């Protein structure tokens, strides 16, 4: 498994942070930004380079919500379920996305790796609740109908890409 993995990206990130143990969170963040998840292969590699135990790195990676050890879809749809969005009915929107994509509370990513649906606690755009975020773009004042339209649009984008 090791032989096929290209560590050049990881190396570049490591040198940027001068192989500092203290920067492990930032290093993992950058790796995840590149791959959209944390590939298994990087753990033993990082452990060697940073002179830390693999277990310690794994403990950090699993403690923080943002890190994912599983591959995510091309479109990551984050449905805000903060208080403000919740009282303006964010759950039916979540349900609609899951229904449209055949996902559930246990299955977050579609098999074709096109879509991931997850909830977040607050996106900080409470004034426009309910909001969702697709990759880095925020969509405001959502409704289940708008959710269906959005999926249709994103699927078209995928088909045309």
């Amino acid at each position, binding site marked *: 498994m090791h032989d096929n993995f290209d560590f050049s990206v990881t190396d570049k990130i490591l040198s940027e942070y001068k192989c500092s143990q203290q920067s492990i969170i930032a290093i993992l963040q950058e790796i995840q930004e590149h791959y959209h998840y944390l590939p298994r292969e990087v753990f033993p590699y990082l452990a060697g380079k940073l002179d830390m135990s693999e277990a310690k790195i794994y403990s*950090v990676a699993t403690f923080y919500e943002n890190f994912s050890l599983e591959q995510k879809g091309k479109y990551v749809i984050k449905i805000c379920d903060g208080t*403000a969005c*919740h009282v303006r009915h964010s759950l039916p929107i979540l349900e609609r996305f899951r229904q449209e994509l055949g996902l559930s509370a246990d299955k977050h990513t579609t098999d074709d790796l096109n879509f991931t649906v997850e909830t977040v*606690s607050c996106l900080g755009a*409470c004034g426009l609740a309910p909001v969702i975020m697709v990759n880095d773009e925020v969509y405001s004042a959502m409704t289940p109908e708008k959710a269906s339209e959005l999926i249709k649009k994103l699927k078209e984008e995928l088909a045309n890409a």
Partner: protein
Amino acid sequence: MLKSRSELSALREEYSKAYAAQSRRLIVCAGTGCVAGGSMKIYDRLKELLRERGLSVAVELEVDPHGDIIDLKKSGCHGFCEIGPLLRIDPEGWLYTKVQLSDCEEIVEKTVLGGEHIDRLAYKCGCNTYKKHQDIPFYKNQTHIVLDQCGTINADSIREYIAVGGYTALEKALFDMSPESITDEIKKSNLRGRGGGGFPAGRKWEQVRRQNVSQKYVVCNGDEGDPGAFMDGSIMGGDPHRMIEGMIIAGIATGASEGYIYVRAEYPLAVERLRTAITQAEELGILGNNILGTDFSFNLHISRGAGAFVCGEGSALTASIEGKRGFPRVKPPRTTEHGLFDKPTVLNNVETFANVPLIILNGADWYLGIGSETSPGTKAFALTGNIMNTGLIEVPMGTTLREIIFGIGGGMRDGAKFKAVQIGGPSGACLTSEYLDLPLDFDTLKKVGAMIGSGGLVVMDDKTCMVEVARFFMNFTQNESCGKCVPCREGTKRMLEILERIVAGEGRDGDIELLEELADTIVNTALCGLGKSAPNPIISTIKNFREEYEAHIYEKRCPAGACQKLKKIYIEPELCKGCSKCARQCPVDAISGKIKEPFTIDLSKCIRCGSCIDACPFKAIKEA
């Protein structure tokens, strides 16, 4: 690189002149809300249109402008997110609301070239039209001190910050004051921690200043994790230099030469603006080694969070900066003694630091004149929920909930009835109408079992089920419990299970008492502040809405009609024509029947999604 005080003063004079000479300013709101509404596209379009017409556009403060220049700026959050994207037109002070890409042409033609107001884009409420920003009731009833530059100056420009008097307080602290006198001024002002606890900032500074240790740290807590709160994010993204100035002053006062800003991962915009701000300050010699030619050095770093609510707790936050799991630890020793890298650390919140330059500049007495006796100053709140005007607000401490909700907030949405307001996020409480005239400050709220928390105010109407709200918060804290101490890890899990079964109609006799008992244990035995306050939303809803809990448990009924599982959906046989539309719409095949005969719903399969109700052309499907 500025090498002395006089060089900074000279630069400020130059920038101030240039700023005063700006004759036409178009200020596009670049807060998270307006950006989501497309304000950056509007910014680009305006720039393009202005250039097409041969007008000179400046996107940064220019010292030596040639001829008539139109200044186009991206500012921080204007606050009134509800009616965004917002565009402010100066010098008139007009505010254009809900601006669309298609409006840009008209804005350039009529307003920029013709000086004419576009009535269509003005804010309207009832039969009144408000042209000017300051006349709108939402703004008129606020007191902007910390936020006064959020929405007026360019958030990406250190030049504009300096032009309007920025870094004057730093000058004063660095050249006219001693570390003791800075600390004394902050102590005298009684500036209390805006992160929620309300601990006097001056006392923390004093404790750190007194220790004779070579390495100390200043840390800013920008891990605003409370759902329903976005004030700190708006300050970091809207006026980053003010907060940075406050941090440098804390460094001077305490003898710290390194600072960290811990920002939560969900605020990419704030991270970007802070990075720009730090680079700009370093280039001018306001941050870095030998600031303004003195022997004081202060280096500032950004640490991005990775999605852990517990990192808002002081010791967890410092652990996270050190590259560890964000576990809180037993206190004492306090962060002021053993903080970041085990060194004495000043840890304050974003809003607290943003107040510092103002206090140093205007003096503690000025600050004590604002707000209430024991909690001076103002507080920023995120006003959200089922209310007419949502957004970011700032009011003096001691303002009542009624003034905020019905004055600034404009009352309830869609004529709904006020039921409760949730204050302080997952550590706070739900307050009912009997508390509407309570003056909001640290101490009065504590007395009624609530807390300011980071400042989220979520207004709820009578269609909101309070048991479900309690479940919602418990679900949040349970998810975010770091798992280190048993009371929080296990206790919140059990509380959540009980709440889940109550909202599902499976509540049992004795559940309320069990919740109370668990809450009491967690409050008294959890390790950190977040664990200790986790049961607050449940305690307060049981206290104020016990009858709702009882209705769920004993009558299997949700008085607000919000709990999905307690809803009963049925088809009225007299109205049903047997068209089968509902059955085709049902995602779980719970509806069956023969064509042209009344259909029926199998409640054991029904998930109460309501699709059939929307699908029925004869309104034959009812909810009870």
